[in-house]
């Protein structure tokens, strides 16, 4: 178990996106935060990198990421009007990939903003 300190980490829990947070972690979870508010602290401490979930599920059964990726591609390719929705908890880089995928499959792309 090795203690690491991350300085100037960025909290994404609310729109303030504070980027002055210090995080102490033991490699599995975040054990201590500095400068974060109550919401941010709870958010950081809530996460672990333990493997709590299967890599992927197809129809409720465990599958590999590769199988799931190919099955997803098949489903999206077969659809006439696929919808891509979400975007508020993913990075800008991931959103760019999503926009490009939406163009490729002739789909609709939408975010929480439309609610």
């Amino acid at each position, binding site marked *: 178990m090795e203690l690491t300190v991350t300085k100037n980490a960025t909290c994404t829990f*609310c*729109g303030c996106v504070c980027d002055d947070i210090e995080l102490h972690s033991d490699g599995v979870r975040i054990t201590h935060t500095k400068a974060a508010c109550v919401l941010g602290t709870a958010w950081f401490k809530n996460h672990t990198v333990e493997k709590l979930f299967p890599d992927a599920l197809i129809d409720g059964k465990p599958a590999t990421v590769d199988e799931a990726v190919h099955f997803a591609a098949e489903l999206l390719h077969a659809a006439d*009007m696929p919808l891509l929705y979400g*975007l508020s908890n993913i990075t800008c880089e991931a959103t760019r*990939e999503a926009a490009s995928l939406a163009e490729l499959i002739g789909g609709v792309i939408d975010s929480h903003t439309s609610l």
Partner: protein
Amino acid sequence: MGGKVSCTLGEVKNRADLIIYWGGNPAECHPRHFTKYTIMQKGKYVPNGRKDRTMVLVDIRETPSAKAADIFLQVRPTKDFEVITLLRAMIKDQPVDEAAVAETGLSLEQLRDLVARMKACKFGVFFFGMGLSMTRGKHMNSAALLTLAAEMNAFTKFVAMPMRGHGNVTGGDVILRYTTGYPFGISLSRGYPRFNPGEFSTIDLLIRGDCDAALILGADPGATMPQPAIEHLKRIPTIVLDPKVTHTSRLARVHITTAATGISAGGTVYRMDEIPLPLRPPLKGPYPTDEEVIRRIREAVAKKADWMPGMNGVVAAA
């Protein structure tokens, strides 16, 4: 948001001497907004910090944020648009109807005082929350407030900024804006982007049953959307990318676990003032990032036959 008169939070910190929160509760929803960006900070042109600034809170009920405010204006529910319209008339010295004022729950005195402060300040800012943009009038309320901020610039510097929610909602808007020209609710089904909220917004698409597959990226509509929308997600093939197995994952055909943004996945997110900031994920996890999985899906789709001649990224080149 086109034509929005806005600024960065750094400018607010260094310049704003009148800060008006409208329909938001930063004390509970954006806990460090006061201390990091607005009222508590000492700034270049507001060297005495809190003493140099006036904070006004406009809301329908007295939230914990009211304690931080110098002035609290309690508006009757659903009357925000009317208050904004009265203010727009009053800054131009136009006469207003006393009966119309009485209906808003505020007095003419309170409105006159607010107008005087708005005109006398050096740098004013409206921060508006969901209490304004998600209640009766919706985007018309935000548009009215943005117009008021723009019109105030005939007298002094004035800006407006939405208090955006969690995660990277702002970034989603910005990226879609610069890739497609529109912020959300975009259909690419004709090979070029079309924007039409109400037609291409998720909730309407799902309730009408218009879409025949769904890829859900870091959201859980299965827990938050109205029942008819959830029923449609169950009917069609749904694919979920999420760090957790969510309600939506359970009704989906495919779930892929991804690394949590900012915890074990790096990248860029936008702050509410549209400033991009890099993430510094402190942990390394066992799952791939959303970015990687979406790219792999895109590459797998790209190998298949074009859905429309000339598509697959090379539009009408052949």
